[in-house]
Every structure is written in C-alpha cells, then in structure tokens.
C-alpha cells in the first residue's frame, strides 16, 4: 500500500483535492450536457453540431478578449462575465437561425437530422478555420480566475474549477426553475409531450421549437465560454466534447434533467477515481466499461422518462 508512506494531513489534503477533481469534472460534464439534454432530451433531435456551438461560444470569448485588450484595457478584469452573456446570445441567435433554415423541415425525419446536423458541424468547423485560422487560440483571462485558493498548506483549489462549478450549478438551477415554474417552460413541456393538443389549445408550437432549440444552443455557447478557462479552442474542439456530451445524456436517460445531473456525477466520479488508482487511459476504459454494463441492464438510462408516448 502506497498510503502508509504518507502523513495523515497529506492523505487528507489529497482526499480533498481528489474530491474536488471529481466535482470539477462533474460540473464540466454537466455544463456540456445541459444544452443537449434540452435539444435531444426534450425535442428528440440528435444535434451532432452541439460541440460546434460550444466552440462558437469559446470563440466569442476569444473575440471579446481581443477587443477588450486592444480597445478598452480598463475592462479587462470583468470582461469575462460579459463575454459569457454575449456567447449565450450569439450561440442562441445562430441556433434560432439554424432551426429556421434547416431543422424545422426535418423534425419528422430523425435519420436525416443526423446527417444534416453532422454536415452543419463540418460547415461550422471549416468556417472557424477560415476565420480564426487552424491554430488553437486562448483568450487572455483575468488574473483572478487563474490562481488557486489555499485553505491549508497542502491544499490547492483551482479558482477556475470553482468558477465552472458555480456556473454549472447556477445554470442547472436556472433551467430547472425555468422549465418547471415559468409559463414558457410549461409551453415547451406541453409541446414536446403532445404537439397536436398543444397546438389546439393555442400554443404556437413552431415558435416553441425555435425557442427551445435556440435555448439549447445558447447554453452550449455558455459551456464553451466556460471551457476557455480550462482548455484551448480550435476549429475542431467541438469534436472533443461531443462524445462525452452524448454519453452523459444517453446514460442519464434522455428526457430527464435529473438523469443528466445524476449521470454527469456518476461518470465524473467514476472516471476521476479510476484515473487516480489506474492510469489515464485505463481509467477511461474502466469508466466506459461500467457505463456499457449499466446500459445493458438499463437500456433506457438511469432515469428514463415516465411519460406515455
């Protein structure tokens, strides 16, 4: 046992930091999956361009960072918060445009949606490459985000991790409230459960579709913006995220927000613990095996939708 060679305080601080590493991965996965949980979970649309909407959000932060640096350096410490809002709006507007121009013709043809959104993802990647170049970019982040917070001598808690965690909790809470307490949320849920009946009682279902899709894309934009604190952004960054994103949503049971949260938590803890005791790649393998085993037993995911279709 390696543990014997260390003092109690060292083991305690590793436990704390390891727990934090798991929570931090959890919030990253949750943030990635939230937007998709709405689009895939609520609308049933397999949006393979979801990763590219994250990359779009990240590029928006990069643009904001360039503008602030060159034109208004006095804003540098605070611009990041504004950039996240801008990323949400831009990704949402682009999402609404995509829904209007493409998705609304494809709702009854799920397989074609798959191809169309995949094509869209390629178009977006090439657009990023043409505009921003093939090299990965990193926005200049405010200094307060990059340090670490030291409660004791041996413990370092990265502030960017805390930031991502706070953002993802805030967003999850916000979305839950919105979906279950607001009138628009009610319309969204009604439309997804029974489109014809919702139309009959006077809900503009076409508009609801557009809004839902745009909301999902906007949240993807926020996720991408948040990820600039932990990684770089390149034209194909979206591809890095998309697999994990679908994994979380499918494992959670596609139609439930609670399932998405639980699945992100399970995958994150499983992965970070197995990475600690095995090595990197093997840790990932162990996690995926666990997921496959559980999905074999529960093909509907952790929290399947209980709605009759």
């Amino acid at each position, binding site marked *: 046992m390696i543990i014997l060679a260390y003092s109690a305080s060292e083991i305690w601080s*590793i436990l704390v930091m390891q727990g*934090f590493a798991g929570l931090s991965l959890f919030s990253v996965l949750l943030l990635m999956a939230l937007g998709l949980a709405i689009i895939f979970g609520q609308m049933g649309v397999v949006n393979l361009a979801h990763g590219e909407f994250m990359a779009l959000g990240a590029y928006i932060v990069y643009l904001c960072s360039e503008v602030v640096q060159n034109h208004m350096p006095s804003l540098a410490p605070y611009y990041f918060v504004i950039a996240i809002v801008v990323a949400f709006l831009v990704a949402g507007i682009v999402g609404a445009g995509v829904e209007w121009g493409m998705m609304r013709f494809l709702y009854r043809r799920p397989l074609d949606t798959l191809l169309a959104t995949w094509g869209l993802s390629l178009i977006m990647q090439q657009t990023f490459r043409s505009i921003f170049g*093939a*090299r990965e970019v990193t926005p200049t982040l405010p200094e307060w985000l990059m340090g670490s917070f030291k409660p004791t001598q041996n413990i370092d808690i990265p502030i*960017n991790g805390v930031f991502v965690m706070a953002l993802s909790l805030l967003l999850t809470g916000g979305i839950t409230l919105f979906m279950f307490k607001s009138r628009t949320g009610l319309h969204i849920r009604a439309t997804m459960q029974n489109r014809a009946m919702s139309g009959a009682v006077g809900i503009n279902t076409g508009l609801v579709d557009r809004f839902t899709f745009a909301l999902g894309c906007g949240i993807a934009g926020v996720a991408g913006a948040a*990820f600039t604190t932990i*990684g770089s952004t390149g034209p194909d960054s979206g591809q890095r995220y998309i697999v994990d994103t679908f994994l979380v949503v499918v494992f959670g049971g596609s139609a439930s927000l609670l399932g998405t949260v639980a699945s992100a938590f399970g995958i994150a803890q499983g992965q970070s613990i197995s*990475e600690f005791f095995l090595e990197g*790649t093997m840790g990932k393998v162990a996690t995926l095996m666990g997921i496959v085993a559980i999905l074999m037993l529960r093909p509907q995911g952790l929290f399947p939708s209980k709605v009759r279709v």
Partner: protein
Amino acid sequence: MPRRRFLAASAALLLAASLGVQAEDYPTAKVNTTGLAVTDTTVTVGQLHSATGTMAISETGSIEAEQLAIDQINAAGGVLGRQIKVIKEDGASDWPTFAEKAKKLLVNDKVASVFGCWTSASRKAVLPVFEKENGMLYYPTFYEGLEQSKNVIYTGQEATQQILAGLDWICKEKHAKTFYLIGSDYIWPRTSNKIARKHIENVLKGTVVGEEYYALGQTQFGSLINKIKLKKPDVIYAIVVGGSNVSFYKQLKAAGITSDKQTLLTISVTEDEALGIGGENLKGFYSAMKYFQSLQNANNPDFVKAFKAKYGEKSVIGDVTQAAYLGPWLWKMACEKAGSFDVDKIAAASPGIEFTKAPEGYVKIHDNHHLWSKLRIGQWQADGQAKVLYESDLIEPNPFPKGYQ
C-alpha cells in the same frame, strides 16, 4: 507570360547566370533520366501537409517554412539553373488521403521530390508509396525513430537525439533521481517514454515513479496532478501534445505546481505550442529541442527576420518549422552534388552533405539519412520565448538504438 512574372523570371535567370550555375551546363536529358517533371527552365516539387483538419495547427508552420526556403532558392538561381515550381497537396489530417495524394504527386505529377508529412502516422502511410514509386520525401518532424529508408531524409531528430542528452542534463543540473513520465496516448510519446525509462533506470540509475498516458484531446488532469503531488517526483517528464497541452499546463499552474517548486522537462512544447499555452503558464519549465527561435548564431537572426517579413511580425518559429526549412536546401545541395535530379543519385549523394547556413547551426546528413544535430535546453519565459541554457555537442543519429527497445 504576364509581364511581372516574365521580369521576375528574367531577373532570376540573370542572377543564375551571374552566379555561374546555368541550366545549359546541365542539359535536361542528362539530369533527368527517369522522366521526372523537369524542363529546361523549371523543376517541379510537391508539398504534402495537412492544410485542414486537426493537424493543420502544427503543419502550417512547416508549409510556410518550406515555401520560404523554396522562394529563397529560386531568388538565388534555383536548382541546377532551374526554378522550383511547387504543387501543394492537402493531406487533410487523414492518413489514407496522405497515401493517395503521395501517389498522385509521384505518378501523375512526376515531382522531383516531396516535402511533407508531420505525424508518424502520415509518414507510415506514405512510406510504401515512396518506396514503390521511388520518390524522395523530406520529413521534418522529430519522431520516435525505428525507421530508415532510402526514399526519406529525416530532417528532424530521432528519439535518442532528443531524449538522452536532455535527461543527462536535467540529472546533472537538478540532481534528479525520481521521474514521472506523462504522455498523450499514441506511438511517439509511448516509444519516447520507453527510451527515457531505459535511460533513467539503466544509465542514470534513477527511478520512474509513475508513467501515464491520456487520450489525445484530454482536458481534465485533476487526478494526475494529485498523484504527482503525492509522489513528489524530482522531474515531470511530459510528452503531452495538441490541445491537451493547454489544459495540462493551465491546471498545473492552478494546482500550484510551478517552476519554483517543481522541475518539468518536455519534448513536445515548441514556440508554436507556447503560443497556445501562454508563456505565463509555462514560465520556468524546460524544453529539449534542437532549435529555438531565440537561438543566437550566425544564421538564425537572418532566418527569423526573413520568416517574419514574409509571415508577419507575430508569427513564431518552432523546432519543426526550422527542420522543414532545411528540406528544400538539403535537396538542392544533393541535386548539385549528384549533378542530377534522379532520385537514386540524390539518395546516394545525400550522406555527407553539410549545410552550414542552417538556422540551427551546422547539420550534416548521416549514412542513415538522419541529421547530425545538437540538443538544446530552453527555459520558457513569460513572453513565450525560450532562453537557451545548454547546448550539446553534435549528436550522431541512431534510429535503432541498442538496449533501448
């Protein structure tokens, strides 16, 4: 012919005439016995890199450097009195595409040589094509070794040239005994770490306290960083590539692992990567490379100036970019030594060629088609440039090292 091109061509011809190398001295029928794309005034070469896809990030620098070298050679009169024309093909970061395009360049275009490839995977994909069609490839990247071909000149370092001297230096300077090896999960980091481990255990009598690989594109290193904190290695030896690099160094910094407390040596960070990672996240860590942009010698300042004049003040030059720049020059010298464009004659003439104007200093082609080169240790500064702290003697390339496999 448009007037400007005519003027440029006549100027080049004039220049060539004044330098004494004239196409008439080398009749086409004599310098080209195998049907390559050579005319009385031009010779056509190919360039095969990824201009799109994942690898475009890395390969763009090589494309630029090769073009710069070709432009300079043309301005100085070309090769055997002939201006170089380039056919650019895009391997699109896809290995079968590389093989297909290599075949197109060699069979349809009959190019005299090809400058290209970056990843080992793309080189492995085109190698059978080059050997079958008898083409000539100038390959710029530092790589894992274990390969040698008549049809390839390797202008980057093979693994032992990059790894051994670097480990020796860190061991001596930092009195390092324990090492933690980290890599992205594919052939180059795994082979390199295998060589590093053998050297650490058998030659330096140190210990490897951990060896781990993470998927390409991994962005979460929390668990790994905790293990590093627990095992407290003297040196972190990192071969993390691509986008993961940025996350890795940012998270190290956020976890309080900085150069004042921890020694880190990497063989996968050049000025190109430093641009993405940010100098402030790398500050004080070491890279082992054969070339750094900040290198002070008789050739490098001119090279950096020419590169920046062509590609912008903000452009940076990494190790591979410099190695790519060597390709066209080494090919030109081989053609002139052989007095021919024929691939067989160039392959035979290449060993022994010395290039004294190389930005990295002096290089020489070995019988095994790799280059003799020096190893340098650079320490990263906050501005994303490295300060060169150490320079080895010329190291003999040894792609099949005994006792390291």
